């Protein structure tokens, strides 16, 4: 019975991701870029959810893991001949190594995972405000270092000549991998133990749950998923250190909050919904035809709208669009499926 409920919980986000991907096949190529970006955003937001949603601790630093993932995949998959153009001071093995597409993504996830582990080892002792400030510090440090350290990357330059392999299929697969990882984690013992600490840390400790240990597990896993997202991003757009800083931190947090902090379904819904609104507004900023009329919004409107939405949700309905619960499939369907499988 529980297995069936679990399967249904996985089904909804998977169906939504695939639906978005399918939608991407029937639209124009410029719209398709928005769809692909949406799917990559799903990966980031799911990464955020794995940690923040299950632990209740806010992290402002996850975009650091996206950044190092992008750096890893971007630098390693660039053709060796192109590297000196934007990265003249690159250190030896980075300059001489080139890997293929999938290995670059795997390495991106791996580096994200390791970086998260290193950061998490000291930081997971902290909660609440201290954790917020400390993770903000990680974001600042990562951005600062990536921006200026030219031995390991392009510094202030933008990445170029990275193979643009993140199309609809790659992004979709990436999103499904993220959703799958989050699902497996939250149904595992580790996920359940961590959620227990979210509800009542003292009680959880009393039954032997290591708050520190469980948070570290989630943090590391979310770092891996975030790293993967970075790799996907690197293969999609020309990115730079500025791409992975406050703007992206804000908008991905907004997606998680608006969708619903505490559920996987909320993470995916939030990412899709906010990306859709953001994409539409981005188009409107360039002038778009709507219902027979022309809508031409001034540049910068989209951030204001998303920001206002996020603030409104937090103030009026902090549990987000989904109420923080998992997929609410129609009752009749759920009951029907469950009775069929429990007989």
């Amino acid at each position, binding site marked *: 019975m529980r297995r069936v409920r679990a399967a249904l919980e996985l089904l909804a986000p998977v169906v939504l991701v695939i639906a978005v991907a399918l939608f991407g096949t029937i639209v124009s190529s410029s719209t398709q870029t928005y769809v692909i970006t949406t799917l990559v955003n799903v990966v980031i937001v799911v990464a955020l959810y794995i940690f923040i949603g299950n632990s209740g601790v806010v992290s402002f630093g996850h975009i650091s893991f996206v950044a190092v993932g992008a750096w890893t995949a971007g630098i390693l998959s660039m053709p060796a001949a192109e590297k000196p153009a934007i990265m003249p001071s690159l250190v030896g093995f980075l300059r001489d190594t080139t890997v293929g597409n999938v290995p670059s993504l795997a390495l991106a996830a791996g580096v994200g995972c390791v970086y998260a582990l290193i950061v998490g080892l000291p930081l997971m002792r902290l909660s*609440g405000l201290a954790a917020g400030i400390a993770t903000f510090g990680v974001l600042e440090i990562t951005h600062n*270092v990536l921006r200026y350290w030219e031995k390991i990357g392009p510094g202030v330059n933008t990445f170029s000549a990275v193979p643009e392999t993140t199309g609809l299929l790659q992004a979709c697969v990436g999103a499904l991998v993220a959703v799958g990882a989050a699902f497996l984690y939250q149904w595992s013992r580790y996920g359940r133990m961590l959620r227990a600490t979210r509800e009542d840390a003292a009680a959880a400790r009393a039954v032997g749950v290591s708050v520190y240990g469980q948070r570290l597990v989630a943090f590391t896993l979310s770092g891996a998923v975030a790293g993967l997202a970075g790799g996907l991003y690197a293969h999609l757009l020309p990115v730079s250190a500025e791409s992975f800083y406050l703007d992206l931190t804000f908008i991905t947090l907004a997606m998680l909050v608006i969708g619903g902090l505490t559920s996987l379904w909320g993470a995916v819904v939030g990412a899709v919904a906010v990306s859709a609104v953001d994409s539409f507004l981005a188009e409107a900023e360039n002038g778009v035809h709507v219902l027979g009329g022309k809508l031409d919004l001034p540049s910068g409107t989209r951030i204001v709208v998303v920001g206002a939405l996020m603030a409104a949700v937090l103030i009026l309905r902090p549990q987000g669009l989904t109420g923080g619960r998992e997929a609410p499939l129609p009752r009749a369907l759920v009951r029907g499926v469950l009775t069929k499988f429990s007989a």
Partner: protein
Amino acid sequence: MTVDWQTIADAFGLGGMYALMAVGIGLVFGVLRLVNFAYGQLVMAGAYALAFAYERGWPVWVGILLCFGVVVVLSIAMDLVVFRPLRTQTPAVMLVATFAVAFLLQSIALLWFGSLGKIAASLSSLNQPWTIGGVDIRKISIVSTGVAAACLVALVLLLGRTDIGLKMRAAAMDFRTARMLGVRANRVIGTAVVLSGLLAATVAVLMTVQTPLVTPDFALRDTILVLAGVVLGGMNRLVSATLGGFAIGFASGFLGGALPTNQSQYLPSFLFAAVILVLLIRPGGLFTRSGQQAVERV
């Protein structure tokens, strides 16, 4: 590493400004137990008001008045629209919410004023140096330090000697009991909010002297550093929070001036690494006595 009197004066000036911001944040935290990520936006709004006045060639005192007016009104609006509804939420939600408000205000400024920035240079004469004992020091460094010190003294007197100050101190310790003794919650919160706004406006005036170009992210980096300093110093007491703000401002100003450029690029990293280190060793704060806990407020 070059240390001269200008660097030291700058360090004190920056430390003073950060101390004022720390008090502004700490006052609201004391009565509402809420960390206002968006505090820097108040400074930004004040700076834009000054730019507005400067562009129109209005006299300096009019600009300053406008700055104070705008900031205090915005501060009160923030309290009514954001703080009050959020009072029953967890610290995590409050943190993210004020972060959202900060971003929202910044993006509104971007939309309204554009990214190129406005100039607020009415007091730029303060960048001229005074010659003291044969050494040239920019007037603004000394003025900042002096103004900050004066404000802090005024605050100490207000909190220590007046009726409303006493009520605010009590409310920060134990709001529930204070209310049952007749302390009016709205009055105390309102006073904290207004004072916090006055401090932000003061910082805006001082900051625009050295940074006359006002952009939507004006004071953003400073806010983050001040927040780090406040947490590092000790969130729960006004004194420790202020000392923390001063410390990080002083360190930032000192190292920023003393380090050569290729090292000062990494200054944010050093500062935040130090903050994280302190948070790990003394999560209660550097300047607190062990055993000082925050009292539950209702």
